[in-house]
């Protein structure tokens, strides 16, 4: 009897928690397949995929903004890796003086409330004609992603065994050849992780794009925001689902790595 009561109690707490976590997502799913739904009806009146057709037809705004988002995310990853790989190497191998200070400076963009920063970047970009351009948005996303990229790259290079590089050099490989065939392949898993992080951050970024992208660059989050404020909840819900796919896929991917034992090492 006591055991049954205990499970009733645990079950209700877990049930309430599950409702709190999945309720908002379920509401989103309902809107994504609803055609007609208004007050006071508790559930949609008619269901269907009509709005999916609207979102996914090649001429739609959503399709264009998805393409814009992906182009921006790819360029952001490229810029971040170009900057973070050399910096991460130098910082990870402790080649530079003042390493702690440099790592701290790299951390700053994540440590300040960013709205005021972005609106001033927008003002500065406006003077040089970068506002409303893909390049401008890429730069803003890149400076935000750079923190993660540099930190992960530094950790990845610090983990590569220097002995292996020395062995390659002893056998006559040049410095460049050693870097390309020994160091980079060994650090690759970390660098790929950094690239995925930066890609997702860029895909989901809203605030910077909101200030710097206007009026010409509309990414998927911005298009979702506009649809939502205009009351097009079906379009907003479907767009939100598109944004969710890479995030959830990533979660399932890192599930194995995000175990508490690994986190204990960080903490």
């Amino acid at each position, binding site marked *: 009897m006591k055991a049954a009561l205990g499970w009733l109690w645990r079950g209700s707490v877990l049930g309430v928690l599950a409702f709190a976590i999945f309720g908002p997502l379920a509401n989103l799913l309902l809107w994504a397949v609803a055609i007609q739904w208004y007050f006071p009806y508790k559930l949609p009146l008619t269901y269907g995929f009509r709005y999916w057709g609207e979102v996914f037809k090649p001429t739609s705004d959503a399709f264009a903004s998805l393409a814009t988002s992906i182009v921006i995310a790819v360029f952001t990853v490229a810029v971040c890796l170009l900057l973070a790989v050399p910096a991460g190497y130098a910082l990870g191998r402790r*080649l530079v003086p003042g390493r702690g200070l440099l790592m701290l400076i790299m951390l700053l963009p994540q440590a300040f409330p960013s709205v005021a920063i972005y609106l001033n970047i927008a003002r500065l970009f406006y003077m040089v004609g970068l506002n409303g351009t893909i390049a401008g948005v890429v730069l803003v996303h890149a400076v935000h992603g750079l923190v993660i990229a540099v930190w992960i790259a530094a950790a990845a290079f610090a983990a590569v065994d220097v002995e292996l590089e020395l062995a390659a050099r002893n056998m006559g490989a040049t410095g460049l050849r050693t870097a390309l065939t020994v160091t980079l392949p060994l650090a690759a898993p970390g660098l790929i992780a950094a690239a995925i992080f930066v890609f997702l951050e860029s895909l989901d970024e809203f605030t910077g794009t909101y200030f710097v992208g206007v009026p010409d660059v509309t990414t998927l989050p911005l298009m979702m925001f506009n649809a939502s404020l205009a009351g097009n909840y079906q379009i907003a819900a479907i767009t*939100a689902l598109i944004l969710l796919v890479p995030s959830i896929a990533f979660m399932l991917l890192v599930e194995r790595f995000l175990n508490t034992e690994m986190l204990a090492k960080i903490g």
Partner: protein
Amino acid sequence: MAQRRTIALLLVAPALAMVLALFVYPLGYSLVSAFTAKDGQPTFANFTKTFDLYGTDIVFTVVIVAISTALSGVLAAAIGGYLVLGAHPAAVAMLKWLYRWPLFIPFIVAAQCMRTFLAKNGMLNNTLDALGLVNAASLSGLLDWRGIIVTFVWKETPFVALLVSGALASLDRAAIEAARNLGAGGLRILVEILLPQVAGVMAVGLVLAFVTMLSVLSVPLMISGGSRTMITADMAFRVNSYSDYGVANALGFVSYLIAGSAAWLYLRRIVASEATR
């Protein structure tokens, strides 16, 4: 050796230049323009105007962010505590699977979910109504400051809980068993033995959550459209509607101060705990 150092500095230089140009410079620019009038003269007028127009919003922002951070901390401690102390492996496994979901959901998507979930005709009210707990027709929905808090807590609790449960898992279990043998209950073990040992990690998580909440623009814009709102939304409004960078930057300065005070509380804690050691 000196040559190697130069090469190493050259490797770091591009990344550093990027952060200086696109973060430190705009930050300085925002600080200067908060104290500059439209004609370029130094002034405090932006702040006078800011406190006149947005004084209540500033208080509102501090209250929202403080309540959200506190709730995230309490929930994270409860989740982390149950994951370590829970006696039923099945319940622990379920909780572990459940609590992480919002971590990977972008803020903008979370805001859209809550915009429908917490609305007058949203799933929350409708479910409570269907269970016979309330009458949905008499409810107004939670799309105001309460909705912002719900969204922030929903999004930030998993992050803090992940850090805290990681730290809790690495603690020595002998103290837990000893306390259990002496008859201490789960809650008492959590509050008196476990949490003090992970206070540092908890504080880092909460400060990061706090600063994140002060940086998110989409949530206040989408959740509390017409009503009183947070200074993040006010900044966007000042710039978009009036091109009033003076007041927007004064609000920005206030947001740095709020974030700074959280970081300062955290640092003071560290200093205090170092002193008692």
